[in-house]
């Protein structure tokens, strides 16, 4: 190898190294910018957390200062005044029951709609898709009128019933899209082996729908757990309130007690964060799958 070509090779590696360095530097800057942005992004939660440990006077004096001592008094008082456990329990029951029934009924309905084609079925499907753009506000007044007149308000189960109704169209839409892509062979084989339609659905089809079920569950849990307007219209008795409702009324009652209010907020946020830590991956992919449709 001549000396000349050695130099060229050397230069080339230098250029490559320079390019790599530039890329790395670019990535480092990007990471730094994004990290700072994230801290700013989450700062409101941080502020609430810090101040939830302070007495009111300290919060009003300087909300930016760290608490002088870890004091849980705000939490214990708020816990009691908000009827926290009660609200958490209500939220939990309502969310779980609604989501389970939405997934079950909608998957069955979508299956029937896909596998038995007829003009009526197409019409039903189209009506459901069209209903997805109807804002809740256009439904709420007559909904209250109808269910109020038959005495079906102020009960968690009426609320669950309504959530199933509002959740059906999106879930059917999601399942419909997925079931269309499943080949008939397995089902036909199972029918020949003597399985009834119900057995075919529960033993063969439903397990295949797992990813769609996951998406439906995640989107509906986020919606129902956090929903405010519908439960505020349906659930009237204080002890029937869900978490967002009890937080709202708690705020209305203790407007000046910042410490209590902030502790209440921290407590309502904690269950969600814990849930998120365990299911973060599924949530992100569920959102993606739910939006691509």
């Amino acid at each position: 190898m001549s000396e000349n070509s050695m130099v060229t090779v050397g230069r080339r590696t230098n250029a490559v190294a320079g390019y790599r360095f530039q890329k790395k530097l670019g990535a480092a800057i990007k990471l730094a910018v994004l990290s700072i942005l994230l801290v700013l992004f989450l700062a409101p939660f941080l502020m609430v957390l810090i101040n939830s440990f302070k007495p009111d006077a300290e919060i009003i004096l300087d909300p930016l200062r760290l608490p002088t001592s870890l004091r849980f008094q705000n939490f214990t008082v708020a816990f009691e005044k908000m009827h926290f456990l009660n609200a958490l329990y209500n939220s939990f029951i309502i969310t779980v029951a609604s989501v389970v029934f939405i997934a079950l009924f909608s998957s069955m309905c979508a299956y029937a709609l896909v596998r038995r084609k007829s003009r009526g079925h197409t019409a039903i499907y189209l009506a459901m898709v069209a209903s997805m753009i109807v804002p809740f506000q256009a439904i709420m007044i007559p909904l209250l009128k109808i269910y109020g007149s038959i005495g079906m308000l102020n009960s968690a189960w009426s609320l669950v019933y309504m959530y199933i109704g509002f959740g059906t169209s999106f879930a059917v839409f999601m399942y419909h899209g997925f079931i269309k892509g499943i080949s008939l062979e397995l089902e036909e084989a199972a029918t020949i082996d003597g399985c009834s339609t119900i057995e075919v659905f529960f033993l063969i089809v439903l397990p295949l729908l797992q990813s769609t079920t996951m998406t439906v569950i995640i989107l509906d849990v986020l919606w129902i757990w956090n929903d405010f307007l519908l439960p505020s219209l349906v659930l009237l008795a204080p002890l029937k309130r869900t978490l967002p409702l009890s937080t709202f009324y708690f705020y209305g009652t203790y407007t000046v007690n910042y410490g209590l209010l902030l502790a209440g907020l921290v407590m309502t946020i904690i269950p969600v964060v814990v849930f998120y830590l365990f299911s973060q991956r599924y949530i992100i992919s569920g959102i993606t799958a739910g939006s691509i449709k």
Partner: protein
Amino acid sequence: MRTDKRRWEQTKNALLFMGPSLLIFSTVMVLPFLFGILLSFTDWNGLSATFSFIGFGNYSEVFHDKVFWSSFVLTLKYVLCTVTLTNIIAFSLAYLLTGNLRGRNFLKAGFFTPNLIGGIILGFVWQFVFSRVLTTMGKSLGWSLFATSWLSDPDKAFWAMVIVTVWQYSGYMMVIYIAGLMSIPKELIEAAEIEGASSFTRVRKIVLPFLVPSIIVCVFLTVQRGFMVYDINLALTSGGPFRSTALISMNVYQTAFLSQRYGPGQAEAFFLFLVVAAISLTQVYLGKKQEIEL
């Protein structure tokens, strides 16, 4: 006999599989929707058992209602601002977050966090930030912008609503944009890079055309949520100060449930439905056209 039995079997299965969904869907969505249209043509006051038809009376009342129009115009302004800002920020975050970046998943999860929490809670969190944290900062740093609470100034309160909304939904739309960005073939961008296309050209000529489906979804979602926002509005400003931030959903709620004017309230709600439907359909139609042209 045989076919009779089969037909019975089929009907039974259809009832079993579709019955629950159809029953609940029609009693919770379809029936109230139709009844709502009917209601908007009556003088029902929410209490009396009887009501009579008054034709377009409610609609003409709503169309002459200055309070309604101002809240409608405000909502349009709010939707325009939040949709634009949310999508720009979400896209920028997504663009920065694709590629080989350490801690990518952590950052992604972090920016998504506000979407896990209900609007009521987020509204209260920001109410504290605007009225306590920022005012203290403004005073101690001498920034006049934050010296008084944004929530007590009619103009700034509107922007406070916009900021909180954009803050919440950016992370959500970011997730959708990231999925869109991942679907662009890497070779294409690399080829453009080698050919010497600037990063701006790369975004404009390759990334954006590929992202059209994601953009359609994100704009659709942000428009819908913008028109229907209620929780954040209620918790952050409750429509104040002086009704300066009462968006259309809140207006419907107040007309119907607080002033007990159910007919006009329903007419407002139905008007909202028509606007949302018209915008959504136009947008989906235009988006589809764009997609085909590619």
